[in-house]
């Protein structure tokens, strides 16, 4: 074993203490009929060999020189200090804070995380984290079903396709029906979810309307009107939001969202091929008893010292078992810590600069393509930091640009067959003017 502390003498002493001759004796309780027939795992590697193998694999990924790819995961600056914080072994190698007296570091940092998520979203209570934005949204939909005692949910077709897939999967078990609200994606459409369209599928069997702000295409949804359409029939508004956008866009608490979820990856978490990321969830205090996931609360000890504990655990599986609000146990605590350190590092002004610069560069990208006659915006609505652009021959040119190390966004027709020739281009604060010029030049060269 690569990390064994035991000498031969140690083994002997332990075996003698246990009163057995060999380790084999300790496995005598496994019936011979079910013992492993084979175990053909390759032989051990030394550290230098294993580094060679992992370097080989990492080296086979080709990182683009210039990238406009977003589609739910975004390339942002991760300040060095964030890596320093989450690299602390006292955070990284601790377990769930079940013994609060020796877990105050983790517990207080989660309380700070919950406070920051409440600030960003304008909500009253935030959970300690979920697996990712999609599972947080699915859990939010199930929570809305419990709160309203209804078993249908409505979701806009402008919600991230993968989030809608996860919703379908989570709802398939208990048999919750999903109705889709078609967004205005036709020629000349806004690219948004029309409140009328939402109203036409909402009735008093529907537990919630799930909408995304900005939506999958970057468009700014009429969230207030969508919320009103939901509330008229007693349904909830589940708002899936992008966290950096909240520096500029109205906080969901302000437009009447009942449950807010987000993919927290943009807050200081590396792309890492899709995970680990962190799902955010926030709601109103009145709904807290149906909220899934851990919560940390402040309290004090007998000497009057302030401290933090896992609280309202009567919602959770280890107390309530089959009556729990969710089965979630392990969450994404270290990623939540990264988000906490990130938000502390950038502060309100820095977060606004990130949002503003991302938005400006997305607009710069769209304008540069339009100016050069290379493409035109597919939708009419205002957008945040991601924009759908129709580029003739997009499939061919997307592939050709990739050869040159330029990743021209996400091909939308793979998710929406009607959106032919349309690329979803994302910008962040890391998108430079040179990147945009390189995209324009490369598209020119493939005309």
């Amino acid at each position: 074993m690569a990390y064994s502390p035991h000498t031969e003498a140690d083994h002997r002493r332990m075996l003698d203490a246990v009163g057995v001759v060999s380790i084999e004796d300790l496995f005598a309780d496994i019936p011979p009929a079910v013992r492993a027939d084979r175990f053909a795992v390759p032989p051990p590697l030394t550290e230098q060999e294993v580094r060679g193998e992992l370097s080989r694999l990492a080296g086979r990924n080709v990182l683009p020189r210039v990238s406009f790819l977003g589609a739910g995961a975004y390339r942002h600056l991760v300040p060095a200090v964030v890596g320093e914080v989450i690299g602390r072994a006292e955070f990284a190698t601790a377990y769930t804070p079940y013994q609060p007296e020796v877990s105050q570091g983790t517990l207080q940092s989660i309380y700070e995380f919950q406070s920051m998520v409440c600030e960003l979203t304008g909500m009253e209570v935030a959970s300690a984290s979920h697996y990712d934005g999609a599972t947080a949204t699915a859990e939010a939909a199930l929570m809305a079903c419990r709160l309203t005692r209804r078993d249908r949910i409505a979701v806009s077709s402008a919600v991230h396709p993968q989030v809608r897939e996860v919703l379908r999967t989570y709802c398939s078990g208990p048999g919750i029906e999903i109705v889709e609200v078609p967004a205005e994606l036709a020629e000349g459409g806004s690219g948004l979810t029309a409140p009328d369209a939402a109203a036409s599928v909402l009735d008093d069997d529907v537990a919630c309307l799930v909408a995304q702000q900005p939506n999958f295409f970057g468009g700014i949804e009429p969230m207030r009107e969508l919320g009103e359409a939901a509330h008229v029939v007693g349904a909830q508004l589940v708002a899936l939001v992008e966290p950096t956008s909240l520096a500029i866009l109205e906080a969901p608490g302000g437009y009447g969202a009942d449950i807010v979820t987000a993919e927290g990856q943009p807050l200081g978490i590396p792309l890492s091929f899709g995970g680990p990321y962190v799902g955010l969830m926030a709601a109103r205090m009145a709904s807290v008893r149906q909220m899934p996931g851990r919560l940390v609360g402040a309290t004090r000890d007998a000497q009057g010292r302030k401290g933090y504990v896992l609280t309202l655990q009567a919602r959770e599986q280890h107390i309530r078992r089959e009556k729990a609000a969710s089965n979630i146990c392990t969450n994404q605590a270290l990623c939540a810590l990264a988000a906490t350190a990130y938000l502390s590092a950038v502060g309100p002004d820095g977060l606004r600069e990130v949002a503003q610069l991302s938005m400006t560069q997305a607009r710069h990208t769209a304008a540069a393509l339009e100016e050069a006659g290379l493409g035109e915006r597919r939708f009419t609505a205002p957008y945040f930091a991601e924009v759908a652009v129709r580029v003739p021959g997009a499939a061919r040119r997307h592939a050709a640009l990739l050869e040159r190390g330029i990743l021209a966004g996400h091909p939308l027709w793979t998710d929406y067959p009607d959106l032919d020739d349309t690329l979803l281009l994302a910008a962040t604060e890391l998108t430079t003017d040179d990147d945009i010029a390189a995209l324009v030049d490369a598209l020119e060269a493939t005309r």
Partner: protein
Amino acid sequence: MSVAERAGTVADASGRGAAFASPSAGEAATVVEPLIFEASAPGRRAVRFPQPSERARRVATGQPDLPAGSLRATAPRLPEVSELDLLRHFNRLSQLNHAIDLGFYPLGSCTMKYNPKVNEWAAALPGFAASHPVDPAASSQGSLELEWLLGELLREISGFAAVSLQPAAGAHGELTGMLMTRAYHRANGQGETRTRVLVPDSAHGTNPATASMVGYETVTIRSNERGGIDLDALRATLDERTAALMITNPSTLGIFEDQIDAVLSAVHEVGAIAYMDGANLNAILGRFRPGEAGFDVMHFNLHKTFSTPHGGGGPGAGPVGVGERLVPFLPGPQPILAEGDPDTVRRNAWAGRSTPGARFALEEPGSRPESIGRVRMHTGNFGMFVRAYTYIRSNGGAGLRAVSDDAVLAANYLRVRLADAYDLPYDRICKHEVVFSGRRQKRANGVTTLDIAKAILDHGIHPPTIYFPLIVEEALMIEPTETESLETLDRFVEAMHEIADRAGSDPGSLRRAPVTTPVGRLDEAGAARRPDLRHAFGETGAE
């Protein structure tokens, strides 16, 4: 009973006795480390960002403006701190934690083994860390190959036909397994008639909670006097209404289910699915392969068995392995070897070589129409896959077998060494963990298992899991893992003996423990009665 009252009762059952000052009693609490918000001053900054160029600003104005009604009126009150103050705050917070890297952490069921540092090095390689999950397959061959290879290794380790890496944690793997179970029965026209999931009384709480999330009813099966599943009770309960049996093996008592063949036959006889909670896989590597033995589905906990750090509660990773009959229902898309011979690719990878012409990809959407679909975005907690792959390759087959050997030896060593001081309800060879009972101390000295756990803290050791499994009175569930030296185990034995002695000589001191930690026992009932879940920014009337 209201939820709050129940929470209070739970906390009371464990935190009784201490006289807590009411937070509303007026006196301000002593603060160990202020909240980061309290270090905030307007205009203070840690990180700055560039300004957009003149050209960017100019051309951007031609694009549609955000509607006025969509804008935020007041900025979020995030902290405004210097980088040094930020770092000191989190460093000081970190010092309030116990962690594997600081000391012994024998938390049963959690497998708190050493988290090797080369794993962290690997996960941080820019080729992985900067790899975008929506990158075209041609750009992410390294990530896809690693996922495929890890799936192959987990298949070999578990004896299952196929593996999905998507689930983000053990409970997420359980959910995936039960959703597949439901889809399987539906495909056989029994989706609505099989409504019950059987769960032993020793099960993790996630098992029944998972069954409920999928719309199943949980039926509890009692354990027999040897700590195994009661076969007669099981047979009497199994019928055509049974969708699945979920069991943990070795069980949460640390005992291998020695009638496992009979259990599996009984489950399969009625057409139900056999689910294995793989939380305790660390005990049986190379000894028992659940898929080969006949289980239909199991989740792995990469953050337990395969050494990825727990991170203060996550992230983990909970891949599932399945037998042939559940393969069509696996979540998708799966990473696949689209071109190339699997034997050759494996052989080359085990020798540290790439295979010319091999091509990895994600399954085409819709290629498995019976798939339950995605259980999360992208392909999983990839950073955990890198660490687990590194760990498995570092240990190799022989090393993994030795992991279980030493984990089991250490648990049995503690079983024997502590049996004089604490009651051992199931006195037989255990696997990777051993469950004692503090009932002797409770009856003789009025000292509870909670008191014992808190006294362990004063020895600089993290306590075992307590009050679980539920079928053991005053349970103390100890999992030493394979990476702790004999000296560490002996120090723990001494500490446990000292506490057992003190239970007789000075029980009051145990009830007051811990005294060396940054805070003492906290008022959990008060926290649940008056939830304070976020910073109030000096507002009045905030919760």
